[in-house]
């Protein structure tokens, strides 16, 4: 190494290609290999509990065409979509305010957004389960204000799941939004106003398109993990909703049916790839900008 270095600054420009090997190894072993295993199991045949024959059996995937399972995918996507919109509705104004109006305490506020994120999602979610109890703290507040009579019927409902999802994933929405809003060239917005645009049209035609990469990144970062969410529907939803995560976990831990669980996961992965491909296509020429933010 030292000898090579001594040759001068040239070596710094033309790095040997093998230096990338650790990154490739990481991607192959830790990213691709588990996926290969999922694919292999999805097409495997099972007898008894653990007698697995690998091959090209399609029974597991065919079984997924049953409306029972299709409904799980549909409802999970809808719920994750609603959760994503919820994060966006709270995250965008907050990120906008943070990126344009706040100057003195910006770092502190950003830190406050991150701090809950340092805590395990399990603990944060369990905390919400305590807050939302029929006669818990939230009930106390609402009851004290005279807003409700009976006990709070939130825990175990899809509304409780939505609250938990938005809370847990909000930071993932705020950060990419903040980055693109903060980078926004304010002069473009001013120009739009100068050229006769009102506030709304200036926002719609300059701010929104220019921050679109952050918006889409945020939506993807939030939507994708939400579809696989396990903790929130289990703790806040009473474990009874049509959620993909808990049901696929059941296939492994309750049904001891690895091939079917793998097939369920594989279809979700493919469906998400389609969603991402769709986003990229819609974005078209913005793909480059998107990459820059990603």
């Amino acid at each position: 190494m030292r000898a090579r270095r001594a040759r001068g600054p040239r070596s710094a420009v033309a790095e040997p290609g093998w230096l990338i090997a650790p990154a490739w190894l990481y991607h192959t072993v830790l990213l691709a290999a588990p996926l290969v295993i999922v694919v292999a199991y999805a097409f495997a045949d099972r007898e008894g509990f653990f007698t697995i024959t690998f091959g090209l059996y399609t029974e597991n995937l065919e079984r997924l065409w049953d409306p029972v399972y299709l409904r799980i995918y549909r409802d999970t996507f809808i719920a994750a979509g609603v959760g994503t919109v919820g994060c966006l509705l709270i995250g965008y104004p907050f990120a906008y305010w943070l990126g344009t109006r706040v100057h003195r305490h910006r770092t502190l506020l950003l830190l406050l957004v991150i701090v809950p994120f340092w805590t395990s999602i399990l603990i944060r979610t369990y905390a919400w389960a305590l807050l939302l109890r029929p006669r818990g703290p939230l009930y106390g507040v609402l009851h004290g204000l005279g807003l409700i009579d009976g006990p709070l019927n939130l825990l175990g409902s899809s509304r409780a799941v939505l609250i938990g999802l938005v809370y847990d994933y909000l930071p993932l929405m705020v950060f990419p939004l903040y980055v693109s809003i903060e980078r926004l060239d304010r002069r473009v917005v001013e120009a739009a106003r100068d050229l006769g645009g009102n506030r709304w049209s200036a926002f719609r035609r300059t701010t929104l398109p220019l921050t679109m990469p952050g918006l889409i990144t945020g939506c993807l970062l939030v939507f994708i993990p939400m579809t696989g969410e396990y903790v929130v529907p289990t703790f806040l939803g009473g474990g009874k909703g049509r959620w993909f995560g808990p049901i696929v976990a059941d296939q492994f831990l309750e049904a001891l049916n690895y091939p079917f669980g793998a097939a369920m996961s594989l279809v979700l992965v493919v469906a998400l790839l389609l969603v991402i491909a769709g986003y990229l296509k819609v974005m078209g020429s913005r793909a480059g900008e998107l990459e820059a933010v990603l």
Partner: protein
Amino acid sequence: MTDALGASPLSRRGFLKAAVVLPAAGVLAACSADVGPPATDAPDTGSGSPSPAAIEDQLNVYNWAAYLNPATLKAFTKAYDVETTIDFYASNEELIAKLQGGAAGYDLVAPTGYAVQIMADEGLLYELDHARIPNMSNVDPRFLGLPFDPENRYSMPKDWGTTGFGYLQDFVEEEMTTWEDFFSLAEKYSGKYTVLDSSPEVIGAGLKRHGYSYNTTNPDEVDEAVADLVAIKPHIAAITSSEYRQMMSRGDAWVALGWNGDFFYVLEDQPSVRYVIPEEGTEYWVDTWSVPATAEHPIAAMEFINWVLTPENQGRETNYTYYASAVTGAQEHTDPAIASDPSIYPDPTVIDKLEANDGNPEALDLRSEGWTRFKSA
């Protein structure tokens, strides 16, 4: 009675998060009576019986939460000078999946009968050396040689219980005695119901309501049970094996499908709680102590099994877990209020109607498929 128990046993009790909830202080007080120096409990039979010095210095337990009296473990630790660790699982299926997946480092596990059968077939269990477990002679013969492990090569009975439902008499006007009551009152007490997060027990409730076997392999019967469950699903507050005790204690749940011993934890906060062994019949299960094939300290594990199979130590366990012991004479060392409770030690005529999970893969697949339909309904 022997016939019923001969069917082939079953599923558990389990409290994942409940590990943090300590049982009533009064119960702990009751426990303290029999914490004797343990090494002397076991009659030393001489031939091949190991001395305490001969066992490894470590014992790693993998168990249901709140399912081993800390006093028992502590006494064993002291008597044998071993270090112990304890981890928890929430269902037999989880235990099987973990061991099958290669989880190592555990010396002692507590699977239910049918899980013993599955794991033994998979080569996941260590073959016990009966010479090291002379206290096997303390076990009531009814609980030995059960179909899941006919020669007890892989397991020793830990305790046993039933799956039924509990309800709070303060809130529920009717007297509930059957699965029929359980299903038909769900609408009236909508939002106050919970069921276990476990397919055999819950689908089994629907099956038993119609007089079918817990282990049916008839898809039509499973369909009927699932349809009943789907019908009451809108009234269920939570599908959980770990939270219903707390929900009942707070009065947030009034009717819960669960394991008999669990409802005793509710008693302190809700004195009106009543456990029902439904008249149509239900499941009974025998949980065991087993040693994984990957155990690094199997001698210590077998020594523990032997040590815990004394009436004194079993009595202490029942005082803590509220589950019936399989050891003869354990009742005499159990808090009389617990030992005489028919929901823990049911009447023999009730026992005749009980049935155990037989571990049949076909039945499990049918229930799993129905379970997904129930959950996604």
